[in-house]
């Protein structure tokens, strides 16, 4: 257990279901987490992402299913025998122990000799940049420092799997951004399989190797951050990750048509009964000189223009009343004069940015 040659372990979740009365907190969830991977469970509150993490940690007993850490089936293993590290949203630091007492706790339970405990505690505190804080009391620490202690305590016994339950949600934005990078570095350094829960899509995009978007107890999509953002599987994912506007489009033979005009698109549309055109605000290009060549053009009228410093936000109405949101950089002609409300514009969407998604309710 104490050797440093530990390999990270893959996690295999198969057909796990957990119901609370009529509600499916987890509905036949299967998920393979690769060894050494940083995987994020992303979803709104009540989606089941925390339930899934609690199943991994052993605090929630599912109705059925299988859970393997490596080759070991652990679905019926009590939490204290699972040997996974975990950080809690509330940090859950023991208020009656010092920082060193907290970090050394798992080692003490594992009957590590005292001298070695002291050395490993100090090393773990160094890793989270809290060297020399061992004698402090928990109530003497700031939120960010508590977070680091929680991480040190979760990694000090070198678990091969690390679970993190919204670890940064209690921190202010600046510290959160900094800790995101730090945790990411820590993961690269220690290499343990990490499952991270958050409801913050930007955090998920920043930190993860792959993201599993969870809703209604199901995994909606499991993909890399880039694929998730560029090619969402359905409207829920597209809506949850980033901002977007959706336009209903229809299939006419081999072409996809919006408002009577065929659309140019690079990737094929999904096999689905109804289709939606997903438009990301930053991908729309504003043209004030009429339609352009080689792109999809939409005639629109500006309904609202918001100056936001580095960029501007433009709401525009199409002929049929549908709204499109556009984000433009404050650069070039826009700096001298932003479009005025009521101005007739052309919105251009390149074929590679013309993403068609499944419009069915997911």
């Amino acid at each position, binding site marked *: 257990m104490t050797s440093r040659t530990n390999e990270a372990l893959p996690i295999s979740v198969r057909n796990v279901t957990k119901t609370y009365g009529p509600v499916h907190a987890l509905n036949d969830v299967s998920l393979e987490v690769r060894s050494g991977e940083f995987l994020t469970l992303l979803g709104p509150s009540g989606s089941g992402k925390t339930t899934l993490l609690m199943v991994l940690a052993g605090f929630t007993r599912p109705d059925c299913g299988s859970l393997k850490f490596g080759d070991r089936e652990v679905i019926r293993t*009590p939490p204290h025998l699972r040997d996974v590290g975990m950080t*809690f949203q509330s940090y859950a630091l023991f208020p009656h122990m010092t920082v060193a007492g907290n970090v050394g706790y798992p080692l003490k339970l594992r009957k590590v000799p005292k001298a070695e405990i002291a050395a490993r505690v100090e090393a773990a505190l160094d890793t989270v940049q809290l060297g020399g804080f061992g004698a402090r009391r928990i109530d003497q620490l700031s939120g960010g420092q508590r977070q680091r202690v929680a991480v040190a305590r979760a990694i000090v016994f070198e678990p091969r799997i690390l679970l993190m339950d919204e670890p940064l949600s209690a921190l202010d934005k600046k510290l959160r951004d900094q800790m995101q990078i730090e945790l990411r570095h820590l993961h690269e350094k220690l290499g343990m399989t990490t499952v991270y829960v958050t409801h913050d899509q930007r955090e998920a995009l920043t930190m993860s190797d792959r993201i599993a978007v969870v809703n209604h107890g199901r995994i909606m999509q499991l993909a890399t951050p880039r694929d998730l953002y560029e090619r969402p599987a359905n409207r829920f994912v597209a809506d949850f990750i980033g901002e977007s506007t959706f336009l209903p489009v229809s299939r006419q033979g081999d072409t996809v048509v919006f408002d009577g005009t065929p659309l140019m698109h690079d990737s094929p549309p999904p096999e689905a009964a109804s289709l939606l055109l997903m438009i990301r605000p930053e991908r729309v290009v504003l043209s004030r000189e009429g339609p352009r060549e080689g792109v999809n053009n939409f005639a629109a009228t500006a309904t609202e223009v918001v100056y936001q410093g580095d960029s501007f936000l433009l709401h525009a109405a199409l002929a049929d009343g549908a709204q499109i949101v556009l984000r433009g950089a404050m650069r070039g002609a826009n700096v001298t004069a932003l479009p005025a409300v009521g101005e007739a514009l052309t919105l251009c969407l390149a074929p590679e940015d013309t993403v068609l998604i499944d419009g069915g309710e997911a």
Partner: protein
Amino acid sequence: MEAVRTNEAGLRRDEWLERLKLFGLGSPAILLILVILVIPVGWLFYVSFIGADGTFSLENYERMLKRKSYARIFQTTFEVSFLTTGLCILIGYPLAYFIAGLPNRIANLCLITVLLPFWTSLLVRTYAWLVLLQKRGLVNEWAISLGLWDEPIKMVHNMTGTLIGMVHIMLPFLILPVYGAMKAIDRDLMKAASNLGASPRRAFWTVFFPLTLPGLFAGSLMVFILCLGFFVTPAVLGGGKVIMVSMKIVSNIELFVNWGAASALGVVLLVSTMVILWIASRFLNLEKMTGGGH
């Protein structure tokens, strides 16, 4: 350049008035404590140093040291208080633990039941125990008819009866602070302990129990100190065999009309209570050191 300071005097006066009003709210209670506590206790203190001949003397205290019966009375008092406190912990802690684990609505119902005895007179409860525990009382009759024991067991007019009655009366004073301490513990702490490798038993002793200690200390202290001065229950259920300091005070006044002796007993009881409080308060500072509570 000198800063402009307008309305300074007026604002200061407002501040003063506000404090005065707050003090005004407290003054009836302060007056009451002065009249019914400070003055009588001062008088008690004074009387305890007056001998039979009406001059200053230490004879009341000397008597306490010389006579064996006094030593026995103090010993009984502390024994009863210790045992009651101990039994309250043994019964109350697990009960509080059980209630703290229940869903809130049921837990509140349980707490009301715990507090129920407070709504009946102390005297009524004590005599109720007498009825239950006496030789031909309910407990003995039932036990014999169920075949648990053959002969009636003596359960009142001795230490056993006194303890049963006292524990029953004191239990809520222990349960409430312990329950409060348990409820204040973040449930994630136990999960964290378990996640870090602690078996449920280890997690209880290394995390849960230490965090309930401040509540346990407070409850035990309250029970112990209330026990030291208790009168009714040992008087009724002890049947003259369990003599505590309070009972000796009463007999000194009612039988011997010796206010000096009674006062001296009162003073010793008061001082020993304060010493215990002082020692305990040093322990209770642990609360801060260990960060117990929040």
